[in-house]
């Protein structure tokens, strides 16, 4: 016969019917008389009945084994539904109503009640007496079982009502459904000690003989008892208890379990499993057993069982791979391919349930949810997790649990940022990294999106510079490794930054706060998945500490800070923290060169070592402070302190590229960001240094920190070109300048002064504009975040 898949209700019903027909209490064979009677009660034409009997194989076998009986019942249902009788229809017909039998004496219900009453009778007989331990009990806990049975039968009577009360012992009230199903021990069982206790035990006895086929009420997923015995033996006690607690539909397990379990355990289990409501609750006994099993695979209770080991372990249970696969999907809560203790217990429990005939749920029952330890906002998860061992009404959990996982899964999508945090934390395995990552994200966010937060240790101007720097770095998505790219993106301009920010914002599902593509992809993924942090782009966890940006070419030092600045800037390249441009050193100098990203500021004011920094890297941030400092320095320089310094500064400034448009006033200051500038700088430096009168040279080439004027963007480009032109001119003139002496020098100095003043003004202006830009970007990002949050609803 082909495998027969029955729904839970069908199983129960069929089992009951079988019990009813099992007048001889063989638990294996339904008496033909009863069966025929039943079929007649189905009000089917005789030929149909004959056909059914033929199909189910009873005719062949000569008797109705349990399996045949079940098939027959199903065929009856099929026939009653008017569908043609086919063997294939057994499994293919969906939503088949239960077969209806109009028994002469009673209807279905009455039949049920009759059975119940028969139970009552039997229970009555039981109540007073503790049934002797089943003879062939393989079950040692015969007594216990009997007690339990009594319990059950008595409760059966009350059925719908009170939760189990353990009369004799505290045997747990079996789950309601189970009890119902239980009504088995109709007549004739009394003799069988085993049989007496009820279906629960009945299966045992049936299983005993080891006739797997006949005693398979539910075909799918059952393995022959001997196998099960093997499995159970490997599983030893708890399964028994588990089985006891579970729906006793299946037989084999219980037999074997019985052999293993002890009476006391059984009792306890029963007692505990009396959740009465929640068939999925794991009793302490069961839990202990699972834990022991876990230890055999993984001694560390806080560790994981890898997928392969778990696969081997559960394959021993002889469930079909498909079901094991489904169990795995249900129990691997964080989807990490490994089982924690909680997950393992849930999986084990599900396996036991399945072996006992319970159908696998679609969603993980609430009581089996692993306790989510690391959840941050774990609202749902924690609740469900904690419910784990608490009793919860059977109805409630099933309804809730299905929603839980789905909730958990949908949450990330719905509530992106917070969910992401949640999902991160849910992943026990990677929670650590995730949380770290998250923490990195947090600062990154402000940096990228809001740019403000840049810790400010520098002078206000420096702060601005830093922020600008941050913005630039943050927006640079080219660097997937650091959420906040500190890598000099060569577009110091704000427009570029804003565009990149836009880009990143657009990319992120959740919000625009990731600066890097890779990073954004992660939130998206996380958003869409429950706990997974799957970085398809392979970035995430690695970003906990953004790798230091590649060393910038000649980090130019800002004038403002003097040597320290320079050093710090030179150090910064190595730091690249996600947006932690807290202090000047953090600001990685922009790679100046060609673009001349506002290196101007970087013009190393310091006399000391700045010369070398030709890199245009100094981004705006450094620029600003530098610029400001520069102006200060300029004043200082103007005071005629140090021509050489000036020269150096200027050369540096030459080197620094100023991309920002500067006014015409500052046009003289052209950042010679280009290599030639750099070349010249060194050249100039020596020359300038060499001469006392060199200062002339500097003026023309003052570092052109491109200050952002109002025009910023476009004008910048234009001015840049202008500047370059000017620079060229200046450069060209430079060589000659040093030659001039005297008045020229004065003139140059004056012009320097003027230029510096202009620079200062422009720098201030620039910083203000930057500030405004940041504000606007912030708003924009927040709006995008909101949009993203709203979006999932719309597109689904």
């Amino acid at each position, binding site marked *: 016969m082909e495998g027969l898949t029955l729904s839970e209700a069908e199983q129960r019903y069929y089992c009951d019917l079988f019990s009813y027909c099992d007048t001889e209490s063989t638990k294996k064979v339904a008496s033909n008389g009863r069966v025929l009677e039943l079929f007649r009660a189905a009000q089917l034409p005789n030929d149909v009945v004959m056909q059914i009997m033929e199909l189910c194989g009873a005719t062949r076998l000569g008797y109705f084994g349990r399996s045949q009986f079940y098939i027959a019942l199903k065929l009856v249902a099929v026939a009653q539904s008017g569908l043609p009788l086919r063997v294939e229809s057994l499994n293919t017909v969906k939503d088949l109503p239960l077969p209806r039998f109009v028994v002469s004496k009673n209807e279905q219900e009455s039949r049920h009640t009759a059975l119940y009453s028969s139970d009552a009778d039997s229970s009555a007989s039981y109540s007073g007496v503790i049934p002797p331990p089943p003879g062939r009990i393989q079950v040692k806990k015969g007594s216990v079982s009997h007690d339990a049975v009594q319990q059950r039968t008595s409760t059966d009577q009350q059925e719908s009502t009170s939760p189990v009360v353990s009369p004799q012992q505290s045997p747990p009230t079996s789950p309601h459904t189970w009890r119902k199903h239980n009504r088995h021990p109709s007549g004739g069982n009394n003799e069988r000690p085993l049989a007496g206790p009820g279906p629960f035990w009945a299966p045992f006895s049936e299983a005993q003989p080891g006739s797997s086929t006949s005693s398979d009420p539910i075909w799918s997923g059952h393995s022959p008892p001997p196998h099960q015995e093997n499995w159970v033996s490997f599983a030893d006690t708890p399964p028994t208890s588990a089985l006891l607690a579970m729906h006793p539909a299946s037989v084999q397990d219980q037999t074997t379990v019985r052999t293993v379990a002890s009476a006391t355990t059984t009792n306890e289990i029963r007692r505990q499993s009396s959740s009465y409501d929640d068939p999925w609750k794991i009793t302490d006994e069961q839990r202990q057993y699972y834990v022991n099993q876990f230890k055999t695979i993984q001694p560390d209770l806080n560790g994981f069982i890898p997928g392969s080991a778990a*696969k081997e372990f559960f394959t021993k249970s002889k469930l079909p791979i498909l079901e094991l696969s489904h169990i795995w*999907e249900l129990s*691997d809560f964080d989807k990490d*391919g490994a089982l924690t203790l909680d997950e393992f217990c849930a999986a084990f429990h599900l396996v036991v349930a399945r072996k006992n005939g319970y159908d696998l749920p679609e969603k993980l029952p609430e009581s089996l949810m692993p306790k989510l330890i690391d959840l941050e906002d774990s609202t749902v998860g924690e609740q469900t997790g904690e419910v784990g061992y608490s009793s919860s009404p059977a109805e409630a959990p099933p309804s809730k649990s299905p929603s839980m996982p789905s909730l958990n899964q949908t949450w990330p999508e719905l509530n992106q940022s917070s969910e992401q945090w949640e999902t991160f934390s849910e992943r026990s395995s990677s929670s650590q990294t995730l949380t770290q990552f998250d923490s990195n994200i947090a600062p990154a966010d402000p940096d990228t999106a809001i740019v403000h937060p840049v810790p400010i240790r520098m002078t206000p101007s420096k702060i601005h510079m830093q922020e600008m720097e941050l913005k630039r770095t943050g927006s640079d998505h080219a660097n997937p490794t650091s959420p906040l790219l500190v890598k000099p993106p060569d577009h110091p301009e704000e427009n570029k930054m804003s565009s990149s920010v836009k880009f990143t914002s657009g990319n992120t599902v959740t919000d625009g706060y990731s600066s890097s593509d890779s990073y954004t992809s992660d939130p998206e993924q996380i958003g869409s998945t429950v706990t997974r942090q799957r970085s398809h782009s392979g970035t995430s966890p690695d970003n906990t500490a953004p790798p230091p940006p590649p060393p910038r070419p000649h980090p130019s030092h800002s004038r403002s800070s003097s040597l320290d600045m320079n050093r710090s800037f030179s150090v910064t390249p190595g730091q690249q923290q996600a947006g932690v441009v807290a202090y000047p050193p953090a600001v990685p100098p922009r790679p100046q060169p060609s673009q001349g990203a506002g290196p101007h500021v970087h013009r190393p004011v310091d006399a000391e070592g700045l010369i070398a920094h030709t890199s245009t890297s100094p981004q705006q941030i450094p620029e600003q402070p530098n610029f400001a400092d520069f102006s200060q320095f300029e004043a200082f320089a103007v005071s005629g302190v140090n021509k050489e310094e000036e020269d150096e500064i200027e050369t540096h400034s030459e080197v620094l590229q100023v991309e920002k448009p500067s006014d015409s006033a500052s046009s003289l200051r052209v950042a010679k960001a280009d290599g030639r500038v750099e070349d010249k700088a060194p050249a100039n430096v020596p020359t300038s240094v060499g001469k006392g009168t060199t200062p002339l040279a500097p003026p023309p080439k003052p570092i052109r920190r491109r200050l952002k004027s109002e025009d910023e963007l476009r004008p910048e480009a234009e001015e840049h070109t202008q500047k370059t032109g000017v620079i060229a001119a200046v450069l060209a003139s430079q060589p000659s300048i040093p030659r001039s002496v005297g008045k020229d020098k004065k003139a140059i100095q004056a012009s320097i002064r003027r230029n510096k003043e202009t620079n200062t003004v422009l720098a201030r202006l620039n910083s203000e504009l930057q500030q405004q830009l940041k504000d606007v970007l912030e708003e924009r990002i927040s709006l995008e975040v909101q949009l993203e949050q709203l979006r999932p609803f719309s597109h689904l």
Partner: protein
Amino acid sequence: MAVCIAVIAKENYPLYIRSVPTENELKFHYTVHTSLDVVDEKISAMGKALVDQRELYLGLLYPTEDYKVYGYVTNSKVKFVMVVDSSNTALRDNEIRSMFRKLHNSYTDIMCNPFYNPGDRIQSRAFDSMVNSMMMQVC
């Protein structure tokens, strides 16, 4: 919402294919099959390009008057093909991308399942439910 979603293995045999049940499903199967050529073309065109998230998404493979076909390929050359109804007021590209992302995530979950042998047909209930959620609710 898609009318047909298919997961194709690296060797171009289907691991999973599901269509909206109303229409002649074979037509969708055929469409998916023919779109594999377009997918291969796009993959080879990418050449040595870095395969990052964006490039996993292939975009619109080809449109017909009735429907559009979108493609997505993973790093292991497993392809997801989605057929959407043209009349479905243009699903935004981002939505298609997110649908593919969900598919990819679910596929990865299946891969993580030790009981799944790569190359087998996908029979996961979770995957089914996820795909169902993305399919058009026709009936």
